[in-house]
Protein backbone atom coordinates (compact mmCIF):
# COMPACT_ATOMS: atom_id res chain seq x y z
CA UNK A 1 0.00 0.00 0.00
CA UNK A 2 1.07 3.57 -0.60
CA UNK A 3 0.05 6.70 1.26
CA UNK A 4 -1.53 9.59 -0.60
CA UNK A 5 -0.46 13.19 -0.03
CA UNK A 6 -3.05 13.83 2.70
CA UNK A 7 -2.00 10.74 4.56
CA UNK A 8 1.66 11.71 4.35
CA UNK A 9 0.71 15.07 5.85
CA UNK A 10 -1.56 13.52 8.48
CA UNK A 11 1.13 11.13 9.70
CA UNK A 12 4.09 13.45 9.09
CA UNK A 13 5.02 13.73 12.81
CA UNK A 14 5.26 9.95 12.97
CA UNK A 15 7.11 9.66 9.67
CA UNK A 16 9.66 12.21 10.91
CA UNK A 17 10.67 9.82 13.70
CA UNK A 18 13.53 7.64 12.49
CA UNK A 19 12.12 4.74 14.56
CA UNK A 20 8.80 5.00 12.72
CA UNK A 21 9.25 6.50 9.27
CA UNK A 22 7.12 5.57 6.28
CA UNK A 23 7.83 1.92 6.92
CA UNK A 24 6.54 2.06 10.49
CA UNK A 25 3.49 4.03 9.44
CA UNK A 26 2.68 1.26 6.96
CA UNK A 27 3.00 -1.28 9.76
CA UNK A 28 0.45 0.71 11.74
CA UNK A 29 -1.89 0.87 8.75
CA UNK A 30 -1.70 -2.90 8.44
CA UNK A 31 -2.14 -3.54 12.16
CA UNK A 32 -5.24 -4.19 14.22
CA UNK A 33 -6.06 -3.47 17.87
CA UNK A 34 -9.02 -4.71 19.90
CA UNK A 35 -10.39 -2.43 22.60
CA UNK A 36 -12.25 -4.37 25.25
CA UNK A 37 -14.37 -1.66 26.83
CA UNK A 38 -15.10 1.76 25.37
CA UNK A 39 -14.98 3.55 28.72
CA UNK A 40 -12.38 5.39 30.77
CA UNK A 41 -9.37 3.48 29.42
CA UNK A 42 -10.79 2.53 26.03
CA UNK A 43 -11.62 6.16 25.21
CA UNK A 44 -8.12 7.68 25.29
CA UNK A 45 -6.58 4.48 23.95
CA UNK A 46 -9.05 4.36 21.06
CA UNK A 47 -8.63 8.02 20.17
CA UNK A 48 -4.83 7.91 20.10
CA UNK A 49 -4.68 4.61 18.23
CA UNK A 50 -7.11 5.97 15.65
CA UNK A 51 -5.20 9.23 15.33
CA UNK A 52 -1.99 7.21 14.95
CA UNK A 53 -3.43 5.46 11.90
CA UNK A 54 -3.88 1.92 13.18
CA UNK A 55 -5.61 0.28 10.24
CA UNK A 56 -8.30 -1.71 12.00
CA UNK A 57 -9.77 -1.09 15.45
CA UNK A 58 -12.27 -3.44 17.06
CA UNK A 59 -14.41 -2.25 19.97
CA UNK A 60 -16.56 -4.39 22.26
CA UNK A 61 -18.87 -2.94 24.90
CA UNK A 62 -22.45 -3.80 25.81
CA UNK A 63 -23.21 -0.55 27.66
CA UNK A 64 -25.02 2.63 26.69
CA UNK A 65 -23.56 6.05 27.49
CA UNK A 66 -24.56 7.38 30.90
CA UNK A 67 -24.30 11.02 31.97
CA UNK A 68 -21.89 9.99 34.74
CA UNK A 69 -19.50 8.53 32.12
CA UNK A 70 -18.73 11.90 30.53
CA UNK A 71 -16.41 12.99 33.39
CA UNK A 72 -13.73 10.69 31.90
CA UNK A 73 -14.92 8.68 28.89
CA UNK A 74 -13.82 11.21 26.29
CA UNK A 75 -15.05 9.17 23.32
CA UNK A 76 -18.59 10.05 24.36
CA UNK A 77 -20.11 13.50 24.32
CA UNK A 78 -23.26 15.00 25.85
CA UNK A 79 -25.58 14.21 22.89
CA UNK A 80 -24.49 10.53 23.12
CA UNK A 81 -26.16 9.91 26.49
CA UNK A 82 -28.43 6.90 26.05
CA UNK A 83 -26.69 5.67 22.88
CA UNK A 84 -24.71 2.44 22.67
CA UNK A 85 -21.08 3.17 23.54
CA UNK A 86 -19.81 1.23 20.55
CA UNK A 87 -21.83 3.38 18.14
CA UNK A 88 -20.68 6.58 19.77
CA UNK A 89 -17.07 5.36 19.77
CA UNK A 90 -17.23 4.23 16.15
CA UNK A 91 -18.52 7.64 15.05
CA UNK A 92 -15.84 9.63 16.90
CA UNK A 93 -13.05 7.45 15.58
CA UNK A 94 -14.37 7.68 12.04
CA UNK A 95 -14.59 11.47 12.22
CA UNK A 96 -11.10 11.71 13.72
CA UNK A 97 -9.56 9.42 11.11
CA UNK A 98 -11.54 8.02 8.16
CA UNK A 99 -8.55 5.80 7.29
CA UNK A 100 -9.41 3.53 10.22
CA UNK A 101 -11.65 0.54 9.68
CA UNK A 102 -13.82 0.19 12.80
CA UNK A 103 -15.46 -3.06 13.82
CA UNK A 104 -17.82 -2.94 16.75
CA UNK A 105 -19.64 -5.46 18.88
CA UNK A 106 -22.43 -4.38 21.19
CA UNK A 107 -22.15 -7.32 23.53
CA UNK A 108 -20.25 -8.56 26.55
CA UNK A 109 -17.00 -10.48 26.24
CA UNK A 110 -17.76 -14.02 27.39
CA UNK A 111 -15.99 -17.36 27.59
CA UNK A 112 -17.96 -18.27 24.44
CA UNK A 113 -16.94 -15.36 22.19
CA UNK A 114 -13.59 -14.20 23.66
CA UNK A 115 -11.17 -16.45 21.81
CA UNK A 116 -12.78 -16.04 18.41
CA UNK A 117 -12.80 -12.23 18.73
CA UNK A 118 -9.31 -11.87 20.18
CA UNK A 119 -7.81 -14.06 17.46
CA UNK A 120 -8.81 -11.46 14.85
CA UNK A 121 -6.51 -8.77 16.26
CA UNK A 122 -2.78 -8.13 16.73
CA UNK A 123 -2.89 -6.42 20.13
CA UNK A 124 -5.55 -6.38 22.86
CA UNK A 125 -6.28 -3.48 25.21
CA UNK A 126 -7.95 -4.32 28.53
CA UNK A 127 -10.27 -1.44 29.39
CA UNK A 128 -12.86 -3.32 31.44
CA UNK A 129 -14.02 -2.44 34.93
CA UNK A 130 -14.38 -5.83 36.60
CA UNK A 131 -12.06 -8.60 37.72
CA UNK A 132 -13.80 -11.62 36.15
CA UNK A 133 -13.47 -10.08 32.67
CA UNK A 134 -9.85 -9.05 33.32
CA UNK A 135 -9.03 -12.69 34.09
CA UNK A 136 -11.03 -13.88 31.07
CA UNK A 137 -9.08 -11.49 28.81
CA UNK A 138 -5.77 -12.65 30.27
CA UNK A 139 -6.65 -16.30 29.70
CA UNK A 140 -8.04 -15.76 26.19
CA UNK A 141 -4.92 -13.82 25.13
CA UNK A 142 -2.80 -16.69 26.42
CA UNK A 143 -4.73 -19.28 24.40
CA UNK A 144 -4.76 -17.02 21.32
CA UNK A 145 -1.08 -16.11 21.82
CA UNK A 146 -1.97 -12.44 21.41
CA UNK A 147 -0.17 -9.64 23.27
CA UNK A 148 -2.25 -7.85 25.90
CA UNK A 149 -1.91 -4.41 27.42
CA UNK A 150 -3.48 -4.66 30.85
CA UNK A 151 -4.80 -1.55 32.58
CA UNK A 152 -6.51 -0.77 35.86
CA UNK A 153 -7.61 2.40 37.62
CA UNK A 154 -8.94 3.18 41.08
CA UNK A 155 -9.52 6.57 42.69
CA UNK A 156 -6.19 8.42 42.24
CA UNK A 157 -4.21 5.44 41.02
CA UNK A 158 -3.60 3.48 37.89
CA UNK A 159 -1.68 0.45 36.79
CA UNK A 160 -0.50 -0.77 33.43
CA UNK A 161 1.60 -3.67 32.18
CA UNK A 162 2.01 -5.65 29.01
CA UNK A 163 1.84 -9.38 28.58
CA UNK A 164 3.46 -11.37 25.80
CA UNK A 165 1.88 -14.77 26.35
CA UNK A 166 4.30 -17.64 26.95
CA UNK A 167 7.17 -15.14 27.11
CA UNK A 168 6.42 -12.76 29.97
CA UNK A 169 4.51 -12.84 33.24
CA UNK A 170 0.73 -12.93 32.89
CA UNK A 171 -1.97 -11.43 35.13
CA UNK A 172 -2.51 -14.79 36.81
CA UNK A 173 1.21 -15.15 37.55
CA UNK A 174 0.68 -12.29 40.01
CA UNK A 175 -3.02 -12.38 40.92
CA UNK A 176 -4.29 -15.95 40.95
CA UNK A 177 -7.98 -15.09 40.99
CA UNK A 178 -10.36 -12.18 41.56
CA UNK A 179 -10.50 -10.84 45.12
CA UNK A 180 -13.35 -12.12 47.29
CA UNK A 181 -16.56 -10.19 46.49
CA UNK A 182 -16.96 -6.98 48.44
CA UNK A 183 -13.37 -6.78 49.67
CA UNK A 184 -11.96 -4.56 46.94
CA UNK A 185 -13.67 -1.52 45.53
CA UNK A 186 -13.93 -2.03 41.80
CA UNK A 187 -17.34 -0.60 41.06
CA UNK A 188 -18.91 2.79 40.76
CA UNK A 189 -18.70 3.56 44.47
CA UNK A 190 -14.91 3.85 44.38
CA UNK A 191 -14.67 6.95 42.22
CA UNK A 192 -11.87 7.91 39.84
CA UNK A 193 -10.11 11.08 38.79
CA UNK A 194 -11.04 11.20 35.11
CA UNK A 195 -7.62 12.38 33.98
CA UNK A 196 -6.01 9.31 35.61
CA UNK A 197 -7.99 7.15 33.20
CA UNK A 198 -6.56 9.35 30.45
CA UNK A 199 -2.99 8.77 31.62
CA UNK A 200 -3.31 5.00 31.92
CA UNK A 201 -5.29 4.59 28.68
CA UNK A 202 -2.75 6.71 26.84
CA UNK A 203 0.13 4.58 28.16
CA UNK A 204 -1.78 1.52 26.97
CA UNK A 205 -2.04 3.05 23.49
CA UNK A 206 1.67 3.91 23.51
CA UNK A 207 2.61 0.35 24.47
CA UNK A 208 0.36 -1.06 21.73
CA UNK A 209 2.02 1.22 19.15
CA UNK A 210 5.49 0.18 20.37
CA UNK A 211 4.59 -3.50 20.07
CA UNK A 212 3.29 -3.01 16.53
CA UNK A 213 6.33 -0.96 15.52
CA UNK A 214 8.79 -3.16 17.40
CA UNK A 215 10.54 -0.23 19.04
CA UNK A 216 11.93 0.27 22.54
CA UNK A 217 11.41 -2.00 25.51
CA UNK A 218 7.91 -3.34 26.03
CA UNK A 219 6.30 -2.96 29.47
CA UNK A 220 6.59 -6.70 30.06
CA UNK A 221 7.77 -8.38 33.27
CA UNK A 222 7.22 -5.13 35.12
CA UNK A 223 4.16 -3.44 36.51
CA UNK A 224 3.90 0.33 36.28
CA UNK A 225 1.85 1.87 39.10
CA UNK A 226 0.87 5.54 38.96
CA UNK A 227 -0.22 7.60 41.96
CA UNK A 228 -1.73 10.95 41.00
CA UNK A 229 -1.71 12.26 44.59
CA UNK A 230 2.08 12.28 44.65
CA UNK A 231 2.52 12.27 40.88
CA UNK A 232 4.82 9.27 41.05
CA UNK A 233 5.32 6.25 38.85
CA UNK A 234 6.67 3.11 40.47
CA UNK A 235 7.94 0.10 38.60
CA UNK A 236 7.63 -3.34 40.15
CA UNK A 237 9.69 -6.10 38.57
CA UNK A 238 7.76 -9.30 38.06
CA UNK A 239 8.52 -12.60 36.45
CA UNK A 240 6.70 -15.65 35.21
CA UNK A 241 5.43 -17.74 38.08
CA UNK A 242 6.15 -21.46 37.69
CA UNK A 243 3.06 -22.08 39.84
CA UNK A 244 0.80 -20.01 37.56
CA UNK A 245 -2.42 -21.93 36.97
CA UNK A 246 -2.46 -20.70 33.36
CA UNK A 247 1.10 -20.34 32.07
CA UNK A 248 3.05 -22.21 34.77
CA UNK A 249 4.74 -25.59 34.64
CA UNK A 250 1.61 -27.54 35.56
CA UNK A 251 -1.32 -25.53 34.18
CA UNK A 252 -4.72 -26.24 35.70
CA UNK A 253 -6.58 -23.90 33.36
CA UNK A 254 -6.90 -25.52 29.97
CA UNK A 255 -9.99 -23.77 28.65
CA UNK A 256 -11.81 -20.48 29.03
CA UNK A 257 -14.18 -19.93 31.91
CA UNK A 258 -15.66 -16.95 33.72
CA UNK A 259 -15.18 -16.21 37.39
CA UNK A 260 -18.44 -15.24 39.04
CA UNK A 261 -19.35 -11.60 38.41
CA UNK A 262 -19.57 -9.49 41.50
CA UNK A 263 -22.93 -7.82 41.70
CA UNK A 264 -22.13 -4.14 41.67
CA UNK A 265 -24.85 -1.98 43.04
CA UNK A 266 -25.04 1.40 44.62
CA UNK A 267 -27.40 1.54 47.54
CA UNK A 268 -30.17 4.08 47.02
CA UNK A 269 -29.17 7.30 48.77
CA UNK A 270 -30.13 7.42 52.42
CA UNK A 271 -29.99 3.67 52.86
CA UNK A 272 -27.29 1.41 54.17
CA UNK A 273 -25.86 -1.33 52.00
CA UNK A 274 -26.73 -4.79 53.24
CA UNK A 275 -24.50 -7.59 52.09
Amino acid at each position, binding site marked *: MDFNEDQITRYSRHILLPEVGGKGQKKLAQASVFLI*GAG*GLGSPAGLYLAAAGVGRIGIIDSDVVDLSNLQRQVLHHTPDVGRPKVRSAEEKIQVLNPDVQVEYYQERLTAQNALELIKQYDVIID*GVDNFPT*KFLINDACYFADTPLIHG*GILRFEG*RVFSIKPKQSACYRCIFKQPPPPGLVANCQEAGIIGAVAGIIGTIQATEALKLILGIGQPLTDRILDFDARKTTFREIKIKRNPNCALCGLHPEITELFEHEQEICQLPPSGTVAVS
Partner: protein
Amino acid sequence: MTITINGKPEVLEGSTVLEVLKLKDIDPQMVAVELNTQIIERDQLATTSIKEGDQVEFLFYMGGGS
Protein backbone atom coordinates in the same frame (compact mmCIF):
# COMPACT_ATOMS: atom_id res chain seq x y z
CA MET B 1 15.15 -5.31 61.12
CA THR B 2 14.97 -3.07 58.07
CA ILE B 3 13.11 -4.32 55.01
CA THR B 4 11.91 -2.48 51.94
CA ILE B 5 8.13 -2.44 51.54
CA ASN B 6 6.79 -1.11 48.25
CA GLY B 7 10.01 0.74 47.64
CA LYS B 8 10.27 2.30 51.11
CA PRO B 9 12.66 1.11 53.83
CA GLU B 10 10.82 0.28 57.03
CA VAL B 11 11.93 -0.96 60.43
CA LEU B 12 9.70 -3.86 61.45
CA GLU B 13 9.77 -6.85 63.73
CA GLY B 14 8.17 -10.06 62.53
CA SER B 15 9.86 -13.11 61.13
CA THR B 16 7.46 -14.27 58.42
CA VAL B 17 5.73 -12.57 55.51
CA LEU B 18 2.37 -13.16 57.17
CA GLU B 19 3.55 -11.39 60.32
CA VAL B 20 4.64 -8.39 58.25
CA LEU B 21 1.20 -8.32 56.60
CA LYS B 22 -0.45 -8.37 60.04
CA LEU B 23 1.82 -5.60 61.34
CA LYS B 24 0.85 -3.52 58.31
CA ASP B 25 -2.82 -4.41 58.89
CA ILE B 26 -3.25 -5.87 55.43
CA ASP B 27 -5.71 -8.68 54.75
CA PRO B 28 -3.75 -11.35 52.82
CA GLN B 29 -6.75 -11.78 50.50
CA MET B 30 -6.37 -8.18 49.32
CA VAL B 31 -2.87 -8.44 47.89
CA ALA B 32 -0.42 -10.38 45.83
CA VAL B 33 2.87 -10.59 47.72
CA GLU B 34 6.25 -10.51 46.08
CA LEU B 35 9.41 -11.22 48.08
CA ASN B 36 12.63 -10.31 46.24
CA THR B 37 10.69 -10.45 42.91
CA GLN B 38 9.29 -13.92 43.72
CA ILE B 39 5.52 -14.28 44.09
CA ILE B 40 4.69 -15.98 47.39
CA GLU B 41 1.69 -18.29 47.31
CA ARG B 42 -0.95 -17.39 49.88
CA ASP B 43 -0.60 -20.68 51.73
CA GLN B 44 3.16 -20.08 52.01
CA LEU B 45 2.91 -16.66 53.65
CA ALA B 46 3.04 -18.10 57.19
CA THR B 47 6.05 -20.28 56.45
CA THR B 48 8.10 -17.85 54.35
CA SER B 49 10.60 -16.13 56.60
CA ILE B 50 11.80 -12.62 56.15
CA LYS B 51 15.24 -11.24 56.81
CA GLU B 52 17.15 -7.98 56.96
CA GLY B 53 17.35 -6.25 53.59
CA ASP B 54 14.49 -8.16 51.94
CA GLN B 55 12.39 -6.39 49.34
CA VAL B 56 8.67 -6.92 49.77
CA GLU B 57 5.98 -5.75 47.37
CA PHE B 58 2.33 -5.73 48.30
CA LEU B 59 0.39 -5.50 45.06
CA PHE B 60 -3.18 -4.46 45.72
CA TYR B 61 -5.93 -5.30 43.28
CA MET B 62 -6.81 -2.52 40.87
CA GLY B 63 -9.84 -3.49 38.88
CA GLY B 64 -11.37 -0.38 37.39
CA GLY B 65 -11.25 0.57 33.75
CA SER B 66 -14.42 2.35 32.82
